[in-house]
């Protein structure tokens, strides 16, 4: 089995848009995670989410990788975009959509996917 750090790195690297959040899109457990999802959805992003709540180590390992202390964390094509505030701000200015267009193409799919990490 891959380590937690490896699994998190895989999601960041492989998913077009990865969101590490509290809860799932069906059951969001935090206002900031909700704000990030709303902005991404409005900008027409495909969204892959990872719930950090099942184990505190997920958040620890994630922050060690990203250098970002808070949740949610949004990555586009492996690059940290930021948390809820930046995601909202970039959406309001139109930059989020531009970023998604240039990274993923304008005719991208908008699937929503949930990844559950394997915990040892």
């Amino acid at each position: 089995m891959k380590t937690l750090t490896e699994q998190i790195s895989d999601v960041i690297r492989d998913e077009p848009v990865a969101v590490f959040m509290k809860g799932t899109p069906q059951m969001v457990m935090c206002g900031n995670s909700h704000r990030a999802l709303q902005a991404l959805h409005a900008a027409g992003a495909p969204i892959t989410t990872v719930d950090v709540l099942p184990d505190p180590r997920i958040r620890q390992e994630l922050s060690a990788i990203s250098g970002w202390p808070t949740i949610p964390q949004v990555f586009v094509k492996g690059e940290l975009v930021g948390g809820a505030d930046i995601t909202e701000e970039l959406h309001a200015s139109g930059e989020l959509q531009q970023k998604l267009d240039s990274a993923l193409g304008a005719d991208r799919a908008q699937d929503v996917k949930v990844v559950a990490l394997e915990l040892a």
Partner: protein
Amino acid sequence: MVEDTIRALLTEAFPGAVELSVEDRTGTGDHFQVTVVSSAFDGVSLIDQHRRVNEVLARPLADGSIHELRIKTKGTT
């Protein structure tokens, strides 16, 4: 109080800030909105502006005294 700690840390880190405010968003002393407008952010990308604020507030973020943090930053140009 956490609010005072946050204000002190930010004031120390951004002494020439044009605007610097800390708001207790929920009145519960652990959900904060901080706003910093400073020339220190001129030419700095938004994500790196937020990184600097996160670094300044690393201790209260790590020890759990900040439960939720909203950040608004801007340069002066």
